[in-house]
């Protein structure tokens, strides 16, 4: 076969493996989307049951956290996460898993320095930097509010 470099590239591309990045992204999109739809479904269900909206806003993430904790405990979360990648990491389910998974695994190290400390190994920095960012915004907001801008 006589092929110049350009044609070869086109030829090889057709037979090459499908990009794992594309597959990863499709899985993340699918699972992440489904998780958010489950949350939306719960949100609407709670409103339908007559729970006031201020409570529903708290109850919905709490339900998702609990759900993810159960899946983590039974060992199913890791299986879904292997397929979903960022799809389970980014929603609040990922935060829940980051707390519950080390809590279970460090039981043997005791309940104070094991479970109590290690459950924050990933969630800790998330809470610290999130809260720090909110303090900065709070101070800025205070001056904007006093200045009558917001």
């Amino acid at each position, binding site marked *: 076969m006589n092929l110049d470099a350009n044609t070869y590239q086109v030829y090889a591309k057709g037979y090459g493996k499908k990009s794992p990045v594309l597959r*990863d992204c499709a899985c*993340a999109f699918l699972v992440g989307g489904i998780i958010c739809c489950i949350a*939306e479904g719960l*949100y609407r269900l709670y409103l339908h049951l007559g729970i006031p909206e201020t409570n529903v806003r*708290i109850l919905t*993430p709490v339900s998702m956290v609990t759900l993810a904790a159960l899946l983590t405990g039974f060992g199913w979360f890791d299986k879904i996460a292997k397929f979903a990648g960022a799809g389970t990491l980014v929603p609040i389910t990922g935060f829940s898993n980051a707390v519950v998974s080390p809590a279970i695994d460090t039981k043997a190290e005791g309940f104070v320095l094991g479970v109590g400390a290690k459950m924050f190994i990933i969630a800790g920095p998330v809470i610290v930097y999130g809260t720090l960012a909110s303090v900065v915004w709070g101070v800025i907001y205070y001056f904007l509010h006093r200045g009558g801008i917001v």
Partner: protein
Amino acid sequence: MREICIDFLLVFAVGGGFCVIAQLLIDYTKITPARILVSYVVAGVILTAVGVYEPLVKLAGCGASTPLTGFGYSLARGVESAVRDRGLVGALTGGLTGTAGGITAAMTCGFIAALVFRGKPKT
């Protein structure tokens, strides 16, 4: 019925979209998942502060509030309402007040799970 379908499609697309961005960061850069979670929460605070996130939550509901950027949104919203109510002190109390439910639920679930479930043997 049609409206509900469109609503859920928006939830799906926005929620899935946030996950795809994180997946691209994982695949193309050396950023660890822990750093992604931290960046997402901080990004959520910043996006709420500049006024971009609120309309997104109105549009996509849980599609915007369930990803960890939504956690940042709750932090920022909490701090805004606390500053309006109590002045500068609110900057210190508002963030965690806004997210207390989720954080406490995660801690409670973590503790109960540690009591109930058996951990994986360390390899």
